């Protein structure tokens, strides 16, 4: 680790101000950032910890929308969203290990947008709104490829609003070593239609499988996917799976999600 200063502001406003300093970085739960610093792969001058900002914490459910503060740890979501949005709570409860879940935050996860992370698929499939320190961004506009988002420098994810679907399921096929998603499919069924978001698979990061959505909007059964396949070209290939394998898993996990929501 290189040395750096640490700030612990008590409000979003103060945090935004603190982030104006050159080379300052927001620190959420540190579950991604701290290992990066330990490896000396980043050298921020100052870390602005968001952990002390009360307005960025907590889970609330009002009028069919679950709102999660950007600084809310995964374990809290797993506990407190279980009634209002069980599929989301289950996703949060299966991220990493207890230490990761007690520290890591939804804001950090969405800001980081790891191509194998779980939350991006939930946000995209739910048609969530990413609320930041300066604006609101629709999930469809927010994710812009591996580790890339619509966030500007110094912009903070303060909350995420999830419209609650009629039914939903997250099917995660774990990469054996990291247990991030080798392929994860979040399927959300709304009165207006079905949304299917896929994480872990694509070189372009989380994406919506629109052919599957169309097919399911016509007929909501696993068989509706027959004949549909993801093209392997843009899939990720690594030690843990070929492009073909990932493309195949997208279908399998989507079908499992369909069966799970019934």
């Amino acid at each position: 680790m290189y040395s750096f200063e640490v700030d612990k502001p008590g409000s979003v406003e103060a945090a935004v101000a603190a982030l104006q300093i050159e080379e300052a970085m927001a620190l959420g739960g540190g579950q991604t950032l701290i290992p990066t610093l330990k490896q000396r792969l980043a050298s921020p001058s100052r870390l602005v910890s968001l952990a002390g900002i009360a307005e960025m914490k907590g889970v609330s459910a009002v009028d069919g929308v679950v709102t999660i503060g950007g600084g809310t740890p995964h374990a809290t979501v797993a506990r407190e969203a279980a009634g209002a949005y069980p599929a989301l709570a289950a996703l949060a409860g299966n991220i990493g290990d207890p230490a990761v879940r007690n520290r890591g935050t939804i804001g950090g996860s969405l800001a980081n947008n790891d191509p194998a992370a779980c939350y991006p698929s939930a946000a995209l499939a739910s048609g969530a709104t990413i609320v930041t320190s300066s604006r609101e961004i629709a999930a469809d506009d927010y994710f812009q490829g591996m580790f890339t988002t619509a966030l500007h420098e110094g912009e903070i994810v303060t909350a995420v609003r999830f419209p609650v679907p009629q039914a939903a399921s997250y099917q995660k096929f774990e990469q054996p070593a990291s247990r991030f998603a080798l392929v994860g499919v979040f399927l959300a069924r709304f009165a207006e239609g079905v949304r299917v978001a896929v994480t872990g698979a694509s070189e372009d990061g989380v994406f919506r499988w629109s052919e599957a959505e169309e097919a399911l909007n016509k007929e909501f059964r696993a068989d509706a996917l027959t004949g549909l396949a993801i093209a392997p070209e843009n899939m990720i290939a690594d030690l843990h799976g070929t492009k073909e394998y990932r493309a195949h898993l997208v279908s399998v996990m989507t079908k499992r999600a369909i069966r799970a929501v019934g």
Partner: protein
Amino acid sequence: MPKDHGIGASPKRREDVRFLSGTGNYTDDINLNGQAYVHFLRSDVAHGRIDRVDTAAAAAMPGVVRIFTGADFEGVGGLPCGWQVTDRHGQPMAEPGHPVLAQGKVRHVGDPIAAVVADTYEQARDAAEAIELDIEELPAVVDMKAALRDGAPKVHDDLAGNLCYDWGFVEENREAVDKAIKEAAHVTTLELVNQRMVANPMEPRVAVGDYNRATGDHTLYTTSQNPHVIRLLMGAFVLGIPEHKLRVVAPDVGGGFGTKIFHYAEEAFCTFAAKAVNRPVKWTSSRSEAFMSDAHGRDHVTKIELALDAENNFVALRTDTHANMGAYLSTFAPSVPTWLHGTLMAGNYKTPLIYVNVKAVFTNTVPVDAYRGAGRPEATFQLERVIDKAARELGVDPVALRRQNFITEFPYATPVAVEYDTGDYNATMDKLIEIGDFAGFAARRAASEAKGKLRGLGVNCYIEACGIAPSNLVGQLGARAGLYESATVRVNATGGLVVMTGSHSHGQGHETAFPQVIAEMIGIDESMVEIVHGDTANTPMGMGTYGSRSLAVGGSAMVRATEKIINKAKRIAAHLMEASESDIELKDGQFSVAGTDKSVAWGDVTLAAYVPHNYPLEDIEPGLEETAFYDPSNFTYPSGAYACEVEVDPETGRVTIERMTAADDFGNIVNPMIVSGQVHGGLAQGIGQALLEGCVYDENGQLLSASYMDYAMPRADDLPFYTVDHSCVTPCTHNPLGVKGCGEAGAIGSPPSVVNAVVDALQSAGRDVTHIDMPLSPARVWAALQG
């Protein structure tokens, strides 16, 4: 009624109290006054010529004490290799130098180039980044067969090529084996990879060097399985420090699995630098460094052929293995694919003709050496896989084929140089079938199929040679060390005992099991016995712990020393009771005179030995302390039969282990709980190898599996509840306890049964799959299912 103390009881491990309560004393807990920290600048290319290392700017950085490079070690010895293998043609193996810090070339990612000693660890790291390096990258060799081709880049310019040795065993059998295979009724051939593994002990390696200017004494604290071996190798071959001026301490060690046997550059560096800078020097490996500097394990590519006659008797076996040595020869690397591997190729079977060829190869990768089982898992894996394949080809029951070919008479001299003293392979197989509920398998398979899953049952046997090893024999085979063990037993005046053993516990439970033996012999409570190990200053010269040798060899030394103690104590007791020595009996801590009611307690005798007022000083020295060295006359041969039941998800290729059953014959058992624990741990590592772990380099020699993000360690939920049994006992015939050793069995015995089970599952669904290379990741199994 299970015993509650002594041999056969299962007291809880006394050492666990400190391990589990955070009060252990590991090497990283040792911090010496004025200590400086070292950070190693390591190569990030697999192969390169070092054109320039400029440390001037770095040396001026805050806190820097001194920066060392290869040039500082020019007058110093290199890291020695402890085993010389002689090749098929009678020539010694190619033995390249292994400098402490790279000289001229770097040969693998992680090869240390420079060492920065500074006041703090972060300062050392900062300064390392300021070192200016010019390295001309050279083409790397990673694949063993490519490394042996003409014109391949040479890892060591001063060697003829990348071949370390071409070993044939038993060379005289070669033609007879070829002929038998040519003429056999059936030959089953299998090509397979025993993949490279990273040992990953929970505690990374640490070294602290210290030098006392007043006395000229050196001390090294290090995470070692064998401190005396390090003292000898480092003192005599690297730094030229006589053993009486060098103390090596290996305090609590958090797991070794083989990778902490070897003498490493960092140990020599810290010892050397402590004197050079006149401050203690400490190094703590990060997990990332461990991946690229701890010796790796396995990494064999093998072709095996099993020939059978028309009645399905094994008639000959031929194997051809390429074994990766990595970039340098680690301490015992040459012995692993040869004497620890070829000698086990008979397995549990009476195959009359065997020929083993091993080509050891240098590549631009981390050195490879012994890892839990060392050579024996590689032998077992190929043999038990090829037998399974043969059974399937011939349409016979794999268990029946094995039974038909079992060795049943002992002692049995194999055609590969070893003599098994005892064993009963049918007994462990019978036990396996019973406790593994083979009878219920068909129903379980049907239940799995009803869920859309495939179910398979895989079986294998194993035998290992452990209790390593008869010194005169291993000397003939090229070992540059003896492999006896030692113990000093010191009885205190008030009757308590301290055992100073040359063996070393890094998780095995010596501190609990060894006292059980003494408690049994004397008839006193285990709490009266303390075990001291790990410090060359207060233990007799010993060879340490690996190869399941602690109880079989170290325990035997302790028994011999304790026998000497008891003999002397009986003489003292005879004097105290005015009786004849031959009439003295020792039972439950009381010496009595046979046929009388006279007795004295253990404590009365020990007190008399140290307060010799009423004592035959003219005949017997005062005091009660004895040392014994024990050199085994043969290896021990634990054996057993293992079964694995898997479910395979045909949609994803994911394998889950549903049942894992082990029936072992470990000879006599001192602490059944500890033995079960050793088997459990071994199974976890074996299953880890079969399903999850694998160290992978790309073609440029970059380590792809360089962290836990990509190197899959087994976690608790990857593993089933085990059924283990060690009630089949054929005691070892040649050591005093009749014990055989159990530390490696699980890791040796489990990978073949896992793979056999997956192949069985896939074949049950009509797939023509005869082999999948480990690790059987979901992606690989799915690919195999696609045909």
